[in-house]
């Protein structure tokens, strides 16, 4: 088992243990036997016909798991859903990634997949919002859109001959700034309808990338992007000048309250990730609420005590949902 | 359960490192008492009726091992911590305790207290290692007490007052050794007790009642740390002390650091070191280096030279010049470094055979008497012991162990171990000989006997059907051995082939068919190494059924053999050789005399005699060719006794006669050995067991050359061939002269030794005496273990069997070879001692006058060699005690001793007439005295 890298005192240990046991008992019994490890054979009924999916192989007429995970059966398909593994992209997934290379007509983006993803310049809405052929000039100005190490948000477009392609054909995608990037195991983020969340009472944006990259940042109004673009153009022209206008300072300034909210949310996610709880906006919000309700300082959220509280809270929460 | 042991250790490089070792504690360690209801009793060793279970502490085991070995001590639990400590302190005691524990007749059980979950104790801070171990012992004793509560009493035996007090406080019954032994009410056991050091003073008084004479006799041993640093800085030299067998006041320490031997004169310089001790020696200033002392016949004290057998080789002979390495630097004699012992690094104390020195009246009252013990081995100083049975022991041969030697006493102190028997009694003295030479005479254990095939044994049909075994029963095979030989391990055949060549076969008993590697039988044989032949008795290497029946190639029965078969031309050129396992049926077991008689009797024309004659002529050619190559025909003065069948007393004594038949058999055996050596070395260049005979160095031949020069003989010793030739040409006017020279030459040679071919380079494989570049022993597997090994090697080289694993273990093989050399040598020494013993018995009733030859000249007499009886001994010209009173004058150059007035002179090799008589200067100490007629 993965021991938490926390220094717990004796009572905390007992409490955590109890909470985890409760979680275990709450987990659906049906699935408890479905866990397999590498080289475990998976019982199957051959008469129904069989389709071997991911994480399985056949040895001496037996279906055998090749990864650790949970056996899932969908009609004839039998596959092993692996847990701790790299992200496996599916078309339409919303992901957060980091630009690692600017290449001709494309950016290479690290998204916790076994290969780097490709974002073509052509799959990208230009800042001016106009749909047109990309000119050589656009190509030269690629760095003005995304540079190396920029964090971006995009959508999985699909597999092409040269790898995984992304697209960012909407105003909600693009470069992310003024926030934190968190990386959690991708199995903790579930695919849902909504991955963009605007937490209004905190004034922050939360993007739960399917690849386990989570963005927590200051809320940005998507609508006035024309203005932003205009400003940024202005910014570019002014970049040569040494001084930054007060207006820009105003623009780059994030209020302390927001910054604290960002950190609090980020730490809530960190705590959940350490405990290995699945990460949804509801749980995050509850955890954030919990932390503010008991007045836990932001930095203490990474401590043992808060962790135990979160575990206990999660146990209560799940038992509630179960009852319902 | 897991415990981590961690301790700090100093590495060889002098760095301090922390060592962490795992230490597992177990639930499955049982108490070893068959009455126990909780434990698994399948491995129980204690007796079911044991009322008291003894637990000894380390010091008791270390010091009282002789007592513990006594069968009166039973039901002992040996704790593993005690064993471990004993092992670190004294390996020989450890081995003895281990032997006790594995002896099925004794009730000793090893309890692994260090790995038992309840008896393991963790180190406490500030506690010394000893205290911790003592505590561990007490904890184990307590565990036993509660574990066996009711069924047996547990008694902790310790001599440590503190330990005893603590034990009693903790509710463990504890006693000292002495009080325990007293409670057994067996007074003879008390003699076995080692006296604690505190009583030393009392003993001192007993030996010498005048306190004024109590003085420090020996200088103090340096502390170990000083010795180590001294060795490091090259001030001291480390080496094994070897006391001169013929002069106990002279010892040698072979030191690697100065590449020479350091001579140590006198007991004071030897500083309480025993023969075989590893000592640290400090060199004396050069001006104190002794010149070679004028060699007197008698020593400073009243120890004297005895009559003894003629030494068989340089190893046995008194050494005047140290055998040097092949470097061959001839140092002038007076420049040899001498030194003194400053510390003893490792003691070589064990128990010694001997008798008590006669005393005017028993000293000491109250039954306890102090006596001096004189070892049979003259290299060992007298040992003080105390005994309660002095009267009883005076005329006995006893065994005594050494306990300590402090600076104040001239002699070491020890304790009585056991009695062998009455002095002078043949059986007693024979046993002494066997013990002295470390010869195992115990009957074979049941495990060993279990390895034997069921009796009666016959060649089975499987043996015949075995494809590796050739059926040679149709051949006319015969054996030629000494009369009465029962362990016949070689047989021969010789068939004339149609092409005029001969097929000659040497068939050796197939011992390895019965002695398999790794079995208890094999281990035992490997330990014994060789059979030992005494005058009236034979101590077998293999159990009797194998020795005398199953392996012995007796006449008219089918036997398994390992054969070497050559095709030879009539000129004895070997055309081809093959080796095979076989089945033979010997048609005749001849004695040498019979064989000789058959060959000599020209009327006999039967096929067997023809074979004999053919073989003999081949052998003669081979022999001639061997001598041509430079093989030495050395002579030894073997004697033969005629033994009374009833009393086993010797009736007659004479030189062993060597006949042509002997030489014939010998020749073929040599050829077989050489053939096999070549074969196995070809297949196993690294792990073959061979036999080599190093070339003697010039220094070793010095005595021979000096003697030869004195009588005007010029010997060429540049090579074995040259030596052989000059020996051949050394024909004097009397018929015995040549043999005498050969005997002297033999004496200068070292013995041939076994070695593992991987340890030396091929040029060193040389067998000097046989002038063979390769040699091994193959032909007597019944009585020599080396041959067993060779058989296995040969079988493996033929692909018949796999080579046992042991051959891959180089160091192990070397240690086997060393053991064989040791056993072989001891067996020879024992044989010689047995002959000497019988010589004394023989002359007891027969004072004899006979002819003798002078072999060495000394300042007050000379040594003579008596050819008829093969003995050598001193003849004194001046009465004992008066040292070379000037009446006699020794001419070193000419090897002559002259009376001052010139009236009489004796020179070396001169014939003299002597009188031989047994005298008893002291009661029960008979010795053979030679005097001029």
């Amino acid at each position: 088992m993965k021991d938490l890298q926390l220094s717990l005192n004796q009572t905390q240990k007992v409490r955590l243990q109890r909470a985890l046991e409760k979680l275990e008992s709450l987990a659906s019994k049906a699935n408890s036997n479905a866990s397999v490890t590498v080289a475990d054979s998976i019982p199957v009924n051959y008469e129904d016909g069989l389709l071997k999916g991911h994480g399985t192989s056949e040895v001496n007429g037996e279906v055998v798991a090749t990864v650790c995970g949970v056996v899932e059966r969908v009609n004839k398909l039998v596959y092993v859903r692996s847990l701790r593994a790299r992200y496996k992209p599916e078309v339409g997934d919303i992901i957060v990634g980091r630009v690692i290379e600017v290449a001709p007509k494309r950016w290479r983006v690290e998204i916790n997949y076994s290969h780097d993803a490709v974002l073509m310049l052509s799959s990208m809405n230009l800042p001016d919002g106009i749909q047109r052929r990309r000119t050589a000039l656009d190509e030269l100005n690629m760095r003005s859109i995304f540079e190396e190490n920029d964090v971006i948000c995009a959508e999985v477009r699909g597999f092409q001959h040269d790898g995984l392609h992304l697209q960012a054909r909407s105003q909600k995608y693009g470069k992310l700034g003024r926030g934190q990037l968190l990386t959690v195991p991708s199995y903790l983020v579930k695919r849902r309808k909504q991955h963009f969340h605007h937490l209004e009472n905190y004034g922050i944006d939360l993007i739960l990338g399917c690849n386990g990259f989570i963005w927590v940042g200051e809320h940005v109004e998507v609508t006035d992007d024309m203005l932003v673009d205009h400003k940024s153009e202005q910014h570019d022209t002014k970049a040569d000048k040494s001084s930054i206008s007060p207006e820009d300072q105003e623009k780059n300034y994030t209020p302390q309250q927001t910054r604290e909210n960002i950190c609090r949310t980020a730490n809530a996610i960190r705590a959940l990730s350490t405990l290995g709880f699945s990460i949804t906006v509801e749980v995050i919000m509850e955890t954030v609420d919990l932390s503010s309700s008991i007045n836990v300082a932001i930095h203490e959220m990474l401590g043992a005590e808060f962790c135990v509280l979160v575990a206990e809270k999660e146990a209560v929460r799940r038992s509630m949902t179960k009852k319902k | 359960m897991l415990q981590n042991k961690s301790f700090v250790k100093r590495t060889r490089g002098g760095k301090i490192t922390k060592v962490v070792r795992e230490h597992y504690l177990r639930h499955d360690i049982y108490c070893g008492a068959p009455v126990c209801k909780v434990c698994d009793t399948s491995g129980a060793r204690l007796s079911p009726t044991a009322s008291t279970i003894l637990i000894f502490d380390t010091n008791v085991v270390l010091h009282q091992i002789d007592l513990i070995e006594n069968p009166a001590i039973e039901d002992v639990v040996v704790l593993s911590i005690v064993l471990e400590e004993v092992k670190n302190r004294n390996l020989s005691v450890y081995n003895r305790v281990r032997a006790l524990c594995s002896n099925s007749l004794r009730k000793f059980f090893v309890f692994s207290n260090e790995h038992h979950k309840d008896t393991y104790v963790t180190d406490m801070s500030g506690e010394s290692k000893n205290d911790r171990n003592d505590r561990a012992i007490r904890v184990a004793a307590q565990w036993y007490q509660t574990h066996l509560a009711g069924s047996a009493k547990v008694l902790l035996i310790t001599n440590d007052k503190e330990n005893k007090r603590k034990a009693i406080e903790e509710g463990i019954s504890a006693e000292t050794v002495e009080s325990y032994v007293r409670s057994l009410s067996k007074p003879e056991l008390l003699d076995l007790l080692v006296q604690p050091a505190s009583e030393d003073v009392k003993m001192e008084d007993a030996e010498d009642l005048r306190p004024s004479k109590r003085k420090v006799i020996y200088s103090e041993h340096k502390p170990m740390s000083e010795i180590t640093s001294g060795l490091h800085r090259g001030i001291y030299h480390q080496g094994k002390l070897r006391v001169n067998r013929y002069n106990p006041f002279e010892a040698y320490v072979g030191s690697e650091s100065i590449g020479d031997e350091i001579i140590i004169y006198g007991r004071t310089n030897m500083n309480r070191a025993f023969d075989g001790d590893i000592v640290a020696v400090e060199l004396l200033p050069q001006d104190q280096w002794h010149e070679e002392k004028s060699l007197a016949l008698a020593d400073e004290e009243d120890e004297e030279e005895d009559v003894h057998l003629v030494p068989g080789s340089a190893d046995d002979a008194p050494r005047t010049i140290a055998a040097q390495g092949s470097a061959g630097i001839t140092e002038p004699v007076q420049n040899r470094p001498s030194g003194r012992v400053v510390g003893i690094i490792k003691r070589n104390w064990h128990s010694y055979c001997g008798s008590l020195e006669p005393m005017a009246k028993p000293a000491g009252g109250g039954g306890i008497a102090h006596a001096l013990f004189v070892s049979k081995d003259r290299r060992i100083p007298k040992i003080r012991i105390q005994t309660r049975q002095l009267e009883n022991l005076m005329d006995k041969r006893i065994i005594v162990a050494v306990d300590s030697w402090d600076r104040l006493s001239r002699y070491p102190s020890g304790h009585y171990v056991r009695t062998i028997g009455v002095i002078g009694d043949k059986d007693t003295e024979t046993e002494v000989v066997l013990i002295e030479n470390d010869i195992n005479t115990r009957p074979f254990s049941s495990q060993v006997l279990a390895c034997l095939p069921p009796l009666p044994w016959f060649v089975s049909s499987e043996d015949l059907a075995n494809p590796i075994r050739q059926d040679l029963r149709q051949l006319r095979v015969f054996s030629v051995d000494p009369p009465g030989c029962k362990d016949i391990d070689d047989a021969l055949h010789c068939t004339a082939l149609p092409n005029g060549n001969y097929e000659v076969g040497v068939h050796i008993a197939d011992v390895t068919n019965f002695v398999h590697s790794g079995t208890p039988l094999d281990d035992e044989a490997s330990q014994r190494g060789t059979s030992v032949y005494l005058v009236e008795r034979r101590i077998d290497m293999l159990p009797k059924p194998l020795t005398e029946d199953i392996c012995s190639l007796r006449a008219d029965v089918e036997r398994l053999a390992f054969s070497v078969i050559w095709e030879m031309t009539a000129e004895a050129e070997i055309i081809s050789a093959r080796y095979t396992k076989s089945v033979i049926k010997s048609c005749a077991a001849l004695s040498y005399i019979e064989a000789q008689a058959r060959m000599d009797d020209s009327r006999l024309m039967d096929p067997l005699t023809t074979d004999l004659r053919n073989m003999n002529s081949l052998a003669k050619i081979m022999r001639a060719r061997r001598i041509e190559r430079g093989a030495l025909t050395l002579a030894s003065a073997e004697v033969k006794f005629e033994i009374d069948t009833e009393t086993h007393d010797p009736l007659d004594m004479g030189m062993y006669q060597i006949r042509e038949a002997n030489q014939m058999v010998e020749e073929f055996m040599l050829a077989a050995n050489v053939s096999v050596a070549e074969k196995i070395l070809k297949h196993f260049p690294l792990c073959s067991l061979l036999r080599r005979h190093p070339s003697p160095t010039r220094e070793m031949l010095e005595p021979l050359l000096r003697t030869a020069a004195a009588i005007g003989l010029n010997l060429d010793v540049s090579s074995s061939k040259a030596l052989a030739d000059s020996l051949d040409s050394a024909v004097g006017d009397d018929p015995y002269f040549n043999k005498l020279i050969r005997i002297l030459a033999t004496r200068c040679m070292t013995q041939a030794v076994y070695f593992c071919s991987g340890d030396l380079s091929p040029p060193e494989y040389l067998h000097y005496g046989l002038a063979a570049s390769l040699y091994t022993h193959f032909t007597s597997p019944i009585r020599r273990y080396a041959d067993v090994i060779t058989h296995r090697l040969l079988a493996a080289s033929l692909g018949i069997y796999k080579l046992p694993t042991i051959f891959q273990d180089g160091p192990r093989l070397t240690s086997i070879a060393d053991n064989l050399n040791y056993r072989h040598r001891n067996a020879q020494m024992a044989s010689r001692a047995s002959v000497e013993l019988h010589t004394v018995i023989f002359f007891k009733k027969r004072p004899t006058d006979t002819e003798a030859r002078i072999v060495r000249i000394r300042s007050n007499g000379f040594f003579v060699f008596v050819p008829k009886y093969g003995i050598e001994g001193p003849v004194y010209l001046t009465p004992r005690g008066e040292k070379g009173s000037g009446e006699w004058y020794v001419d070193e150059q000419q090897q002559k001793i002259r009376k001052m007035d010139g009236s009489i002179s004796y020179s070396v090799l001169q014939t003299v007439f002597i009188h031989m008589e047994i005298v008893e200067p002291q009661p029960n100490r008979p010795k053979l005295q030679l005097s001029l007629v």
Partner: protein
Amino acid sequence: MEYVSPEGLRLDGRRPMEMRQIRGEIGVVDKADGSAVFEMGNTKVIAAVYGPREVQNRSQQMNDRALVRCEYTMANFSTGDRMRKPKGDRRSTEISLVIRQTMEACIMTHLMPRTQIDIFVQVLQADGGTRSACINAATLALSDAGIPMRDLVTSCSAGYLNSTPLLDLNYVEDSAGGADVTLGIMPKLDKVTLLQMDAKLPLDIFENVMQLAIEGCKAVATYIREVLLENTKQLEYRRGT
């Protein structure tokens, strides 16, 4: 030297057929895709797996399978005497190669073309049997990283001292100079992926020793399986539905 007492106990109190205590722990390096610590007695090894990921050196990229790389290091503090060894000495290179080849045999590399998998193993404490511990740790780490494998690879050593086959030699026994067989097997497929021996052994004894090592590997496999299964269950129930 006596490595097995007549009572049948080894120097550390084990019997000849017994292994040291083993312990495995998953998920010890946060950044890595998979990681594990494996202990065999006082031998402690940490392993981290990165990948499958983009091949760093394009020239090494293989279009039909993944590139597996392995780096073995020994911490300076892992032995009693603190020796500063140069990186990439012969021994490390050799063990790196051994581990790489052993693991490559079980990873289904063809499923991850044009990627690279890095395995880093470091010996934290050395007390004999480091090779085996490294392989076991690597197996755990690879499983943790969710890399598809044909089978687990487990390893155990066995030796031959005092004419007795001994399982799982510790440092003292290892340096006794006897034969030392390191075996790696795929327990489910019943195949050997690693077999190393220094010194010589006759064939019949070797078979015994190897049989013992196989038993040891199977015992390790059972334990590793337990650890993995427990870990998987934990992850699954903690994640919730």
